[in-house]
């Protein structure tokens, strides 16, 4: 019982921290700052999904976490490549 509470509390704390990181994603100033922030948010999402999976006893959530762990990487690389290739996009 205490384990479930601890897992959910950790998930809640991570969501609150995600809101704080969102400040950097909104503020910028450079595009890379935003991508760094969203990358942190993506890793946070993966961890929160794993925590929810353990807390709610739903093993299928781990599959979503796996998909996200791979997609998150795709987004960061795509935007980095895009900003370099286009130049001037900042």
């Amino acid at each position, binding site marked *: 019982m205490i384990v479930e*509470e601890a897992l959910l509390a950790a998930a809640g704390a991570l969501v609150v921290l995600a809101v704080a990181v*969102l400040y950097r*994603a909104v503020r910028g100033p450079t595009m890379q700052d*935003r991508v760094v922030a969203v990358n942190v948010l993506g890793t946070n999402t993966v961890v929160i999904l794993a925590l929810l999976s353990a807390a709610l006893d739903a093993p*299928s959530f781990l599959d979503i976490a796996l998909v996200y762990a791979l997609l*998150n990487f795709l987004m960061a690389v795509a*935007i980095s490549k*895009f900003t370099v*290739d286009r130049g001037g996009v900042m």
Partner: protein
Amino acid sequence: MIAPVGYALVAFVVVAAVATALLRDVLAAIILFTAYSLGMALLYTLLLAPGVGLTEAVIGAGVTTILLLLTIAKTVRPTDGAALERPDPRAAVACGALALVFGLTLPGLPAVGDPDSPVVAYERVTGYYLSQSYADTGVENTVTAVLAAYRGFDTFGEATVVFAAGVAAMVVLRQEVFT
């Protein structure tokens, strides 16, 4: 303990959505939209619809980002310095009023898992799916069973449409930027 996580997620999603709407730089808005989609996927999963969460993960964070990046390769950046959009006051009031009206309907919704909610009270339909979906389909999650098994042909049709759209987009974009 689940409710506070849900409220924090809703706050996260609202902040990300408002930022996406207000940011003037299109690329920044796309990055913020990815954050929004992360929050929505978590919310769907928290509401025990992992199939929808998975779709949101793939569509929101993967496909949409790439498609929008390809789109803004054809657009221009705003030249003046302001980072945020200055919304038309009347439009802002209209959007706020609409959000308020939708928000006012929220207390009318039954609580999650409420046994008296109309969906559960109609035992004939809901009860059948809740009790029989595992025996019928072998899928453990009822939401996923309805989406992928009972509505299987419908979802298959949607997948065909999405596949055709993807092929068409690739044909159109073949000689464009990312080659």
